[in-house]
């Protein structure tokens, strides 16, 4: 049975990545020879090594007991924190810097346990003002302050 879940999970991950990249390289890239290596040569070697490392970890996880369990995944902060850049990337060019920062920081702030809506809105508003002043006016990052989604300004 699985004695070290951390090692086992890591092994599974590496073996899968090795297999995936190995197959991609094998099917689409020219391998070449050791003298004249094609674009696929080095990737296939690396994928094979990663696969072997992953397999070794999986093997070891069955034999050697692990010290600690994986622990719970903090889904709420993980999804909200990683979701915030996705929100920004999706809307920034359309709605502009000020509203984009407002939405992005609001999404992120909900990751904080016990944060109340008025506080979150206040903080997001403050950060939008700050970022607009610094990045749109002072540094001149090429994102409009208010984007085309709100019509001509």
């Amino acid at each position, binding site marked *: 049975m699985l004695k070290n879940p*951390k090692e086992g999970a890591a092994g599974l991950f590496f073996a899968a990545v090795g297999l995936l990249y190995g197959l991609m390289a094998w099917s689409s890239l020219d391998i070449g020879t050791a003298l004249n290596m094609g674009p696929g040569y*080095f990737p296939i070697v690396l994928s094979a090594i990663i696969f072997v490392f992953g397999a070794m970890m999986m093997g070891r996880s069955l034999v050697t007991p692990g010290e600690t369990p994986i622990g719970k995944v*903090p889904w709420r902060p993980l999804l909200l924190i990683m979701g915030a850049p996705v929100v920004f990337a999706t809307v920034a060019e359309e709605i502009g810097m000020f509203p984009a920062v407002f939405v992005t920081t609001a999404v992120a702030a909900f*990751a904080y346990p016990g944060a109340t809506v008025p506080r979150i809105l206040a903080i997001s508003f403050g950060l939008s003002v700050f970022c607009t002043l610094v990045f749109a006016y002072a540094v001149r*990052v090429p994102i409009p302050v208010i984007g085309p989604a709100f019509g001509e300004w």
Partner: protein
Amino acid sequence: MQFLDNLALGFSVAFHPVSLLYCFFGALLGTVVGVLPGIGPLAATAMLLPLTFGLDPVHSLIMLAGIYYGSQYGGSTTAILVNLPGESSSAVTTIDGYEMAKKGRAGPALAAAAIGSFFAGTVATVLVAMVAKPLTSIAMSFGSAEYFSLMLVGLISSIALASGSILRAMAMICLGLLLGLTGTDVYTGAPRFTYGFIEMYDGIDFVAIAVGVYGLGEIVRNLEVGESSRRAIAAAKNLWPSREDLRRMIGPAVRGTAIGSLLGVLPGGGALLSSFVAYNIEKKSSPNSAEFGHGAIEGVTAPEAANNAGAQTSFIPMLVLGLPSNATMALMIGAMIMQGLQPGPSVITSNPDIFWGLIASMWIGNAMLVFLNLPLIGLWVSLLRVPYLVLFPAIIAFSCIGVYSVSNSAFSVYLVAVAGGIGYMLMKLDCEPAPFILGFILGPMLEEHLRRAMLISNGDLSVFVTRPISAVLLAIAVVTLIIVGRPTIARRRKEVFVEEE
């Protein structure tokens, strides 16, 4: 004394009022961002990189160097005052620094860190100036085989810095190398592992990965452990160390500088390694060794000196060979390329003002930290009091805007989320990001030099051992691998890293 002439040229560039101003802004902003918990020099430099785009090459590099030092110094400040290392290389500083702070000696601890760093910075600057020129002539004789072997040494020594199992560290290196190959193959133009995204034809944006893994991943971890783990902020009064403190700082500062200068040259994160080594040497050799762990000023001075000397000399491989010795240097190289400079042995002859100006501004950056930042301690402390609920959304907003403006595309911002998510999961499984990052940076260069070496040698693998420099480097790589793999060392490594927690 030709290097004095060169230094003079450098100082004439760096002491120009405009340069001084940018250096100051860099150091100041770097410190501001570096003080924020969970943001090390890498994430700080990545976030502030866009600020330097509009400048000319000299000033943008000078400002970046200022940011780099500032953020490192900021990391030490949080290490001492709140027991939170801003980055791994100031992790050792927390051991004695925070103890000193708890005893009401935060001021002397901060001063010890700053003075130790300044001393180390001064010595290391002279050292860099002296060896840079001779080393570039050696570097000119480096062929592909030597580059390949040197990078191997760096990759393998990065294993020593990971606290988890060696197998996982090696897997992370290879994963980094593999993902680093993403993009158009230089020889054939074939797109590799791009999943059909045009945006990935130039490779995966490194800034996005750095920000995702180190910036956002850290936020999730902070939120996971909760507010309760945020520790009390020690008050910093009475900044200046006593005469007795100063006397006790001399030895550790000198030894730390020597260790840091040597290890910093090593590609693979020498600054981190050197602070651990310096701390352990002081702990073993000091007459006050009983005091270590309970607020010994030697335990703050030595690692900070080593760390700073290492940070300084880690510029050597970058300036001389164009090889980044750590992730922050990779960002600097990226910045140089964006400014139209190809890093490598030719910069010293083609752009002497930039080369020597950068070296001189390293020293000025250090001096600014002592004379300008130390008196501003009160400001940094108040930054630490900003509630986390304000702080982390701000970090996320800065990261998004920063990453967007580096590439001018939303695609990289999506990458931040992907890299952050995968990076967080891997850290949960005790797979540390440092070896991955180094592999990612070196991947394309490693492949290119391997292919070129094989072409030149007609496919004969023995080229790596018949060329003397390459053979020596490979021998070093093998010995390092054996050393880090020995069970006793593995156990020791664990102890060192457990101590930090």
